[in-house]
């Protein structure tokens, strides 16, 4: 099931050809390697633009990360923790 977290996370990020992409992140004491970015979208909050990434980890685990340029900071907003 999906769980909402909104946990601050450290994310190793690549900036390539004018776009950004999370590479790996540390969450709950472990390093998650991003195998694939499966979706991206953005949401405006006032003047700030929050950029979201749906990503797949190496064990087919699944997350949604949010980048807030105001920090700059990353937040893990949702994680799929296995079948309900």
């Amino acid at each position: 099931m999906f769980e909402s977290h909104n946990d601050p996370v450290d994310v190793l990020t690549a900036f390539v050809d004018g776009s950004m992409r999370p590479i790996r992140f540390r969450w709950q004491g472990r390093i998650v390697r991003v195998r694939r970015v499966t979706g991206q979208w953005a949401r405006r909050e006032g003047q700030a633009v929050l950029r979201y990434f749906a990503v797949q980890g190496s064990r087919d685990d699944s997350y949604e990360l949010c980048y807030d340029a105001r920090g700059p900071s990353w937040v893990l907003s949702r994680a799929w923790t296995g079948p309900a």
Partner: protein
Amino acid sequence: MILLVDMDAFFASVEQAHHPHLSGRAVIVCGDPSRRGVVTAASYEARPFGVRAGMPLAEAKRLCPNAEYVEGNPRKYVEKSLELLEMFLEITPDVEPFSVDEAFLDLKRLPGRGQTLESATEIARELQQRIWDRHGLGASIGVGTNKLIAKMASGVQKPRGITTLDEEKFRGVFWPQDVQALWGVGPKMSEHLKALGIATVGALAHAPRPVMEERFGVVGEHLIEAAWGRDRTAVIPYHEGVDPKSMGHEVTLPEDCRDPEFLEGTLLRLSDQVARRLRTDGFRGRTVTVKLRDFRFRTITRQRAIGIAIDDHGGIFEVARALWRENWKGEPVRLLGVSVSALEHTSEAQTELFAERERTKALQEAVDKVRDKLGEASIVPAGSLAHRRSLGHVPFGAVSGRTAIDRRAKEGYGDGADPSAPDPTQLKPRLPREE
């Protein structure tokens, strides 16, 4: 020729594409799954269990307890819809977005292609494959000689179907069907037609025109033409735009409620949301509508036309509350909605010169500036705070980023923040609790 691209179970499919482990599983998109609400979208895997959009979540959980219940994210779907729109524009400039998950494509201006049903079907097939390859999403496409036929054809084979119909084939497919299968005939119209002995689309096509015109006016003539598969409506390209007819918001309450203070606070919040949207998009409206659904699922809508076009939450709330007080009989309420219609562009709307109006306008502009800078949740009408506290979340979906910022501050994060940037945490003492 015209195509109607209809994305299959769009919201659920986007979630499956973003989270591949959900592929092949029953996925139900809803509001917060831990709260009460309705099903927003169900994947095709969930549908054999009887789950449908609009169904109460509790019923869906009873029918399909093992489904994955995912909190929907409108921004995510809108963004995907825009990506799809860009893809459609690669094929033809004449694209009319019909809803977040449907669009008409007019192929008449394509050089050398798309002028016959066969050629248009080939384009539909390529497009369907391209949508799948690029986005991992299924689409059903209707191919027709006009918008009506394309629209109705798109629903014949789902998911991932392509149906091509000309007027003759249209009649073959739809004439035997219930009259409600015709695009534009809803349950109410269907009842009226059946009361006249018109039960099928074919019967409607052969209905006596004088009777239909006398009973339904110009709509009667239009319905007969539609039953024959005739439609002269043009595809209105995306860049030309179509003004909205109304703007509204509604909310299913966490539990049935009969507390007038809470309910009026909810109406105030809804009025504020509608007003903000009107101003953002440059509209004012002359009719306010209130929607009320009670604990027995009985729904009533009541509307009132007002003398001047308005876009302020106070004005909308005043009318909404009056309608509400006149029509609420004290029964527990499940859902409330407020909408404004009879819209006109702000530049065209008659301006009021009264000083009070000027003060309201200045206040709105100041509030809008704060929200533009700090977000929708940064300033709200005080009367709606009870509503916010009880719902336990900030409307407009603004909670996640702000909650995260609050948490970061609490946990000592934030080194390296731009000191000149507005600090949303400064607003915290003035905001109600968000968690």
